[in-house]
């Protein structure tokens, strides 16, 4: 079946999957292994695929499960709720957006992004989006991506990573406000792609 898929397609698929796995695992070697296993698993199953998309969707489904397994494995040895310097810095930056009475500083008040959905059709937006995700601290990113990319319920995320529900909410809030700021600074405030 491999013969149906040219090497350019397989290379591109591998690259896409690797990027996705790296974002979440934050470990190149582990990401490489996970993607390799997912592709090998998909092709070894003796399944017929209707086309490239069908193969990719299938490999991706396997990859998701493998990423979850890897995160689960890792959560035994790391404390997801421990704050790194980066996470503390994010919290300080966020607090700095507010006046002492906890209302927005005039210059930090979230702006109207207009029609942000239009950005979703622009290649350059996705490069910015990916960079912003890469900038999230590892533990914050792990919780956020389990929720948003692997589509776990918040309760499942907390249970898998052994953190309290309230802590889960704090971490997701930190991730979202961080991403929001990053996108605002690097895309929406700068007027998006200059075209």
């Amino acid at each position: 079946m491999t013969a149906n898929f040219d090497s350019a397609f397989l290379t591109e698929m591998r690259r896409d999957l690797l990027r996705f796995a790296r974002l979440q695992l934050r470990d190149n070697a582990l990401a490489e292994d996970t993607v390799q296993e997912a592709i090998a698993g998909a092709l070894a199953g003796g399944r017929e695929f209707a086309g490239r998309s069908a193969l990719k969707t299938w490999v991706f489904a396997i990859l998701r499960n493998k990423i979850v397994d890897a995160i689960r494995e890792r959560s035994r040895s790391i404390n997801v709720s421990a704050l790194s310097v980066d996470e503390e810095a994010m919290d300080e930056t966020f607090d700095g957006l507010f006046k002492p009475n906890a209302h927005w500083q005039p210059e930090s008040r979230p702006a109207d992004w207009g029609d942000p959905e239009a950005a979703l059709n622009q290649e350059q937006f996705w490069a910015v989006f990916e960079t912003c995700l890469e900038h999230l601290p590892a533990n914050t990113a792990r919780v956020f991506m389990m929720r948003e990319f692997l589509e776990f319920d918040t309760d499942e995320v907390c249970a898998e990573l052994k953190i309290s529900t309230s802590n889960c909410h704090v971490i997701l809030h930190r991730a979202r406000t961080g991403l929001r700021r990053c996108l605002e600074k690097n895309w929406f405030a700068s007027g998006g792609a200059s075209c």
Partner: protein
Amino acid sequence: MLTCKEVTHLLSEGQDRKLTVAERVRLEMHLLICSGCSNFGRQMNFLRSACRRYVDRRSRGHDRAD
């Protein structure tokens, strides 16, 4: 009345759990008079759709070329 900082937490949690009626009422009242938090709320929704689309792009690749 809720502070803007509290509102950002409720708007984020609203993506993850069903807010109570009391929370929703207090939230709506704040959003009526606060453009900053209203924008923040729309941006949270946008983040959710961007994440969905991102996964779609990564998992399906360039369908149009098929």
